[in-house]
């Protein structure tokens, strides 16, 4: 039970303080969510991208309910400042992520910004976007020792099972 508010201790606080106040923070995140839904891949300071990620995924969860749902439509109306994106959200993104259970976004760190501030930047994208992939998943090479041993074991097993 909170009897006093101790400043300078933030144990257990999950939300960051961004911008100039709580209203400004929500407006900042709203702009970023709108940009993500429009462009499907954006660069932003790492803290803002991390904060926005949760809101974006919850918005997609709301959108999955369908556009007849009153709460979903109100959420989309609040969070997307450009109203043509509401159509995109319900008609493109909701069907795209219907088979997924969660984690509709991918966030990766990029080199620090070139400005004087050298800010820590991240690129956040919706999965399934039409752009080139940021990371190419590499399969382990066949030539590594472990893979060679496993290959030999597999061949031995096949030879024992075959004839």
């Amino acid at each position, binding site marked *: 039970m909170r009897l006093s508010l101790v400043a300078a201790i933030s144990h257990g606080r999950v939300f960051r303080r961004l911008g100039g106040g709580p209203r400004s923070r929500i407006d900042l995140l709203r702009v970023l969510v709108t940009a993500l839904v*429009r*462009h499907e*891949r954006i660069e932003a300071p790492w803290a803002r991208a991390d904060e926005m990620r949760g809101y974006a995924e919850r918005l997609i969860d709301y959108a999955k309910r369908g556009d007849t749902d009153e709460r979903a439509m109100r959420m989309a109306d609040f969070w997307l400042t*450009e*109203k*043509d*994106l509401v*159509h*995109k959200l319900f*008609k*493109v993104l909701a069907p*795209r992520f219907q088979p997924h259970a969660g984690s509709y976004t991918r966030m*990766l*760190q*990029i*080199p620090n910004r070139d400005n004087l501030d050298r800010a820590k930047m991240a*690129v956040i994208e919706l999965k399934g976007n*039409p*752009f*080139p*992939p*940021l*990371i*190419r998943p*590499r399969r382990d090479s066949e030539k590594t020792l472990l893979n060679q041993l496993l290959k030999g074991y597999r061949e031995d097993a096949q030879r024992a099972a075959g004839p």
Partner: protein
Amino acid sequence: MAVVVLHSVPSLRALLQRCWQRLERSLLPAAWGAQSPPWGRRCNEFPFPSGLAAACLPGPAGTAGSGGVPGLLDSALWMAAPKKRRSIEVNRCRRRNPSKLIPVKRNIDVCPECGNLKLKHVLCAYCYAKVKAETQLIRKEMGKKEGGPFNAPTVETLVLYDGEKPTEKDEGKRIIERARKRPSWFIQH
């Protein structure tokens, strides 16, 4: 009545005199500097500037006492100043202390795609710049197709390069044409 009490009990008078002296000492310490031994002893132990020892002498204290307004020598405010020049050995110890050095980064790796250096947890700068440039060109084509602002499409998008045709599973998608050969790092699924 107090006078009668003082005359009758000499010890009480001595006690009152001592109390009064202590009060005076606490109010004007500079005037009493030379006279009280504890003050003098403390002068030697703590690193007060030598000006304080001079103030302990009755000369300036006497003038201050007569002047009424306490000057810089008599006031309790003293400024810190280095006593000796710091030798180069001491300076080196301070400047090269590990807490002051920039920590060495041990998380630098070689990107397997292009061979440039990258931090382990960060994307390769060269590869990311490549992908970013291509994405911007694709977005330019998309902008041309949409015409104006706020025309976000209500169907999925597919990017096709020279000589590529959409397959049957890309049925209702908007096609974006790019007039170049498909780059090797952009695999079509």
